[in-house]
């Protein structure tokens, strides 16, 4: 099934408006700095945006008292897991319609029992590549990603970081091959619910009746108690119809790491 260009393009260009504010008790100058505003791509990751926000807020604190490794983000009391894509965190945590999305930047008291420390771009690139490789492991037993040149891996990462859709998809379409000997074995999916670690289980593109597995069926594999009447299933800010074949999701609605990230929210 070839990609629907309109869909993949819209997925790539989806953005959320964010207002970063410095935690009030962490300012050391009399006038608290104004918030830092940014339009963040849903498919991107906070550490990429944070570099600029951090520099901006550094002017408002005593630099000698702050360690870059201690920076963390919080919304509504939740420390944000920076290794999740921005769009996943937005869909998962934001329960109201208020925009921009106000996120608090903390420079101290890193909650090390709750979140991983972000050690910068290299760490993020490594995590991204690990996810991408795992996705291909599920789809093609890793045969496509492992036979790519290192420069192809770099092109995927740089395409994401520099917002170059065409550059990214030139390589990504190879990972999306789904015919003949390259048919997907499993569909890479991660399911999110608030207050729980994300779930990842093996989902086949075809069910036992030899029909295309639907999103509803996948949700039931993740959670046998899944009740469609009391749940909203969201990805990229859109409530996804439950009869959507997961194969279509993998080919059109995946994030750049090639995983389909789905949030299950109560309606």
């Amino acid at each position, binding site marked *: 099934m070839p990609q629907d260009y309109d869909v993949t393009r819209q997925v790539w260009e989806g953005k959320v408006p964010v207002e970063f504010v410095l935690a009030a008790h962490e300012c050391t100058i009399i006038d608290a700095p104004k918030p830092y505003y940014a339009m963040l791509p849903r498919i991107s990751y906070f550490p990429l945006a944070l570099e600029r926000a951090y520099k901006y807020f550094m002017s408002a604190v005593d630099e000698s008292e702050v360690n870059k490794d201690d920076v963390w983000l919080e919304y509504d009391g939740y420390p944000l897991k920076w290794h999740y894509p921005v769009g996943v965190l937005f869909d998962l945590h934001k329960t109201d319609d208020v925009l921009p999305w106000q996120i608090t930047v903390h420079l101290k008291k890193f909650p090390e029992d709750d979140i991983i420390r972000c050690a910068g771009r290299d*760490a993020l690139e490594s995590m991204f590549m*690990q996810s991408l490789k*795992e996705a291909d492991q599920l789809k093609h037993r890793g045969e496509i990603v492992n036979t790519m040149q290192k420069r192809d891996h770099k092109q995927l990462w740089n395409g994401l970081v520099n917002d170059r859709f065409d550059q990214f998809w030139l390589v990504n379409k190879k990972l999306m091959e789904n015919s003949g000997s390259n048919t997907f074995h499993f569909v890479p999916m991660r399911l999110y619910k608030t207050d729980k670690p994300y779930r990842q289980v093996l989902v086949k593109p075809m069910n036992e009746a030899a029909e295309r597995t639907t999103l509803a069926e996948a949700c039931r594999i993740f959670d046998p108690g899944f009740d469609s009447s009391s749940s909203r299933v969201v990805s990229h800010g859109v409530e996804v119809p439950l009869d959507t074949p997961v194969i279509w999701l993998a080919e059109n609605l995946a994030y750049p790491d090639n995983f389909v990230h789905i949030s299950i929210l109560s309606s």
Partner: protein
Amino acid sequence: MEITQEQFMNEIETIATTSSNFPGQEWTIVKTPAGSFVKHRSVEATADGLVLTKEYHICFNPSYGVPVLYFNIWTQDGKLLPIEQVWQLVCSSHKEAVLLDPWTAISQQEHPHLGAPWFHIHPCHTAKAMSKLSQSTTQFNYVLSWLSMFGPVVGLSIPNQMMTSIYKQADK
């Protein structure tokens, strides 16, 4: 070489049961909605006089069909060891390889069952490394053979007596 979740479960149960006969070496099974894993905790003093609490978890990764080692190390004041110090602690025979490309080898990840930050050795090289071991080594307890290869990298070793005891269980 990969294994199924069922084989993983059977083998960690053997490890847990057998280890109960070896004080200080016990592994216990933890059941969660996302599946079961096995854990071991130890406290040790380093040459520099630091007292470190170490906890190791063996979880199953269904994508790669291999066990994955997660671990955390805390200092006496309950703080997690920073990753740079973890890389330094890595056993000297593996240090060079790990330091050459640290992010692909040992990194902090979200624990698949607990959701909290844990260090782990990335699984994508495991299947390849395990396939180099002969069948005669892995046939009795794949998880144990795997542990004897990867455990020492992060300071975890199984006493020979316990290993022999676990391998004997497979015969029954």
